[in-house]
Every structure is written in C-alpha cells, then in structure tokens.
C-alpha cells in the first residue's frame, strides 16, 4: 500500500481483527507507523489502567443528572444578530414564579436572548414561546464590572439541568468582548418545557457541577443566587414556555 494508514483505518483494522494483509505488511515495515502505534498504545493503556473506571463513574453520574438532556448544536453564526439585538430581552433577577411561563423584565438585565427559527432571527420577547428546533444565542450585557466568566444552562420540564456554556468543559467560559454574543448557538430539542435558563456571571471560573447544583437547588423558587462554592456571583433566570411539536409562528 502507498502512504501510512490513518488512525481511522487503524481503528477499522482493529474492529476487523487486523485482517488486512497489505496494511499489516506496511505496519511491519514502517518505522513512522510503529512509533505512532506505540504512542497510541501508551495513551490507550494509560487511560485503561488509571482513568477508564473513574471516567465511567462520571459518565453514569452525568447521565443521571441530565436524564432527558436537550441536544444542542452550534449551528451557525448570525450576521443578523447585532441588528436583531436592537431590542432587549431582560433576563430577570429573579424571575417570579407567579409570572410563570413568561419573562419577567425586572431587576438587572444579564443577557439578551436571540432566537433563530427557520430563516428568521428575532429577539425573544416577554411571553414568547420557543419550540424544538429553535436555536438560541445569548448576548451578555455589561451589568457587573467584576464579571469575567459566564455559565448558561437550562432546567427543562423534566427537572434535568443541561449545561449550554460550557457544553463539555468543566469550568465557566470567559465572557466575550463587550457587545459580542457567546460563540455558537443552542438548539432546543423536544424535551418538555418550560426551558428555565440559568445565567451565572462570576469573576473567576466556576465548576459546571457546582453551578448545576445551584440551579437545581434554586429553580423551584427562581431564587437569585448570590454565592456559588463561596464565590460571589450574579445570577438570573429566564423562563421560556415551550411548545411541543411544531414550532410557533415567528413574531
């Protein structure tokens, strides 16, 4: 065979029990591939010997925490975001449960929420309803000079908390430059609503696990949370009623 096999080809070979003679011949003769395979084997061994079991425990715990986790995707960048953000949705601090399923524009505004549905982009206004498939973007507002980091997540109708920013990392993401939205977008899935978005501003990065715990502890009353893991924070909730099935008409 010509050229060295890719990682993908090597993985396929493993799945097939190493049955490709041409590949085996190449691997026997190629010093570069042998070095690459040795490095790979070392990394795999490191994982299997020390990390596999505790990581699996974390996976199961995370799965329980998310239960019916909305799937999210970073779909697109919105050139129209700046224009659409001309009007403001206030992420209220705190939301009032009596206001239910609508936004309560009281208190300090933490972020604008912008929705893309079909070909339309619009700022989510008070009382607006979201739907599966909607993609949301968030534009943090400069409400707390000490704020350097942000986390955004949602407690859905099943009571599961799903982190949006960051989606996979263990700590808060840095705030974007003033006037810029958080990178990417969040696509809502068909988990039951409402989507109760939880925004956390902090001066230092916070653990996503601790923010999730705070969200779940306070979602019932929509309380403002002032400290997480002993660190001062500014938080806000916004409740988005969610239609099941087809999307509502864009405003």
């Amino acid at each position, binding site marked *: 065979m010509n050229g*060295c*096999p*890719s*990682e*993908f*080809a090597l*993985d*396929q070979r493993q*799945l097939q029990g190493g049955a490709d003679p041409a590949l085996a011949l190449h691997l026997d003769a190629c010093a*570069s591939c042998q*070095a*690459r395979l040795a490095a*790979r084997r070392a*990394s*795999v*061994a*490191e*994982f*299997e010997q020390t*990390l*596999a079991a505790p*990581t*699996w425990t*974390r*996976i199961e715990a*995370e*799965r329980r925490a*998310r239960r019916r*986790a909305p*799937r999210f995707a*970073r779909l697109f960048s919105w050139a129209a975001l700046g224009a659409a953000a001309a009007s403001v949705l206030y992420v209220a601090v705190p939301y009032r449960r009596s206001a239910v399923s609508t936004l309560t524009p009281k208190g300090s505004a933490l972020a604008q929420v912008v929705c893309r549905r079909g070909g339309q982009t619009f700022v989510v206004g008070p009382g607006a309803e979201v739907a599966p498939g909607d993609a949301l973007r968030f534009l943090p507002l400069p409400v707390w000079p000490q704020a350097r*980091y942000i986390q955004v997540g949602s407690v859905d109708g099943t009571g599961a908390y799903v982190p949006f920013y*960051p*989606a*996979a*990392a*263990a*700590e808060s*993401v*840095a705030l*974007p430059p003033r006037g810029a939205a958080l*990178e990417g977008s969040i696509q809502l899935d068909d988990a039951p609503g409402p989507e109760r978005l939880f925004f956390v501003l902090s001066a230092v*990065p916070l653990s996503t696990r601790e923010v999730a715990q705070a969200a779940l502890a306070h979602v019932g009353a929509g309380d403002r949370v002032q400290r997480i893991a002993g660190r001062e924070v500014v938080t806000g909730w916004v409740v988005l009623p969610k239609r099941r099935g087809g999307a509502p008409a864009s405003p």
Partner: protein
Amino acid sequence: MTDAEVAQAYRDHAGAVYARGARILRDREAARDVTQEVFVRCFGRGPDLRSQRELLAWLYRVTTNLCLNAIRNRKLRGRADRDAAHFAPAAAAPEGPARRGLWDLLAGLDDRTQAIVIYVHLDGMTQAEAAEVAGVSDRTVRNCLARFEARARARLGVEAEPILAKELS
C-alpha cells in the same frame, strides 16, 4: 443506544477516543473531559448507529467537535500559556510561527472545514475517509481543503500540509 451498547462501546473505543483527544488537545485532563462527554452523548443516540463502522465514524465526529469546542473555550479563557503549549509544541523550531499561524487560520474557518482539516492533516485520513466521517461528499472535502490551503498560502505564504503533517510524527 441501549445501556449495554454504550457500555460495550466504551470498552471498545474509550481508550482510542481518549488517545485521539489527547493528541489533538495536548492536554490529558481536557481529553478525559472530552471522552466523558462523548460517551454521555452515546446514551442519547437512537438506533441509527447500526454498524461498528458507523459508530466509529460518529465517535470521530463527536470527538473532533468537542475538541474544537475545548480549543475555543481555552482561547476564550485567555489561557495563553496553555494555548502556546498546544498550538506551538515545537515553538523553538523554525516552523513554529507558521504552525501557530496555521492554527489561528484554522480557528477562523467554519466548523466543518476545521473538522475536515483535522481529519486529513492530523489524523492522516484519505479524502474518502474524511468524507465518510464528516458525512459529506468527496467534493466537499476537496473544496474545504482547497479553501484552507489557499488561505494558508495567501496569508502565511506557506503550504499547510508539511507543517501540519509534523503533528503526526
């Protein structure tokens, strides 16, 4: 996927997912986080991953996307020291600045192009393999690579492939 299928996939592939994440991110803890997230997402998958080959392609795709997210978050956090370690592991070598420039260039491209560049230049995939993993046509792969190469030449005055290929060594 059922619980049993996810557990089996974890036994079969978690080590490889971790190794690949560590190679892309140059950060073991971040690679572990990526591995965790990949298999958490397996639980949400439907029965569409019918074959081992489809599962493997999906694992590559999700791992790549999560690694790119991790790199973006790392940059957003301004962790310049770790960025430097990641983007310029051989900063003292003559090609160091060009390599950094290539990564910066890559960061400015769309998600699909970033992923395809990683498949071809870091994973060493053929264009056909990259097309299969990315779920796009061969032509799309060629176009993405051509766009990346053209930008590299125009902005940096270098050919991307020889520099990125060093990542494999």
